[in-house]
């Protein structure tokens, strides 16, 4: 099956239009396999992809473009117990997660 999701990159364009990620620490809640994360993390200072599904995070890590790996971290955790101290992030992204 040949399935293409958003080849126009509408999602990425809207996200970057809505939130300036330059020099920003970004937390994506429910990052899954990193489909969207991989499209915008390069514009951020550093991005953390958070998801409770360890297998999905493995895929996200494996598929992460080489030039982006130094600025993306993947954390296995629930959105109801985010393992970071208060006031850590400049931006939070809930993509297909609420």
């Amino acid at each position: 099956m040949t399935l293409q999701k958003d080849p126009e990159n509408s999602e990425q364009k809207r996200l970057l239009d809505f939130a300036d990620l330059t020099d920003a620490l970004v937390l994506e809640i429910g990052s899954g396999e990193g489909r969207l994360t991989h499209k915008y993390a390069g514009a951020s200072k550093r991005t953390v992809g958070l998801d409770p599904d360890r297998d999905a995070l493995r895929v996200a890590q494996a598929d992460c473009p080489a030039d982006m790996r130094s600025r993306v971290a993947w954390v296995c955790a629930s959105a109801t117990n985010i393992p970071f101290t208060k006031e850590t992030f400049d931006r939070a992204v809930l993509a297909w997660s609420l």
Partner: protein
Amino acid sequence: MPHEGMVHALQEIHRTLRPSGILIDLRPVEQNWAVEIVTAAEQKTAGWLTDMPLGIADDEAAFRSIAEAESRGWFVKEREEEFSFFYYFDTPSEMKEFMDEEWEDFEKIDDATYLKTRSLWASANADARVRVRVKMLITKWKKIEMRQP
């Protein structure tokens, strides 16, 4: 995630965002998504999908949760827009297979719409593909500082 979990997650996001931090909520909204046949030259609408109860309930829970976060004074809405997100398939049968496997509880294609899709696709140019136009909502929320009692 149930409503209470969503609200708790929004509280956690509020806690971990810096003062004046921004939350972007980006998600599909169930609303009879269109099935279209597209070629380089044209696009035609074959029909619309049927929203399933679970998908509608999920949307309602999400809207209720973010409204609660707003009413609790965690976030204020700064901007909101709708846009289209497309799923492309080479053939109508591939689209149907995907829907049956992935969207069973959320969206359904009725027989008449599927037959129309097949018919339009079969009579279109060789480069014809099928796509589903998903309605997306993106909202920018700004963190509000909680006043100490």
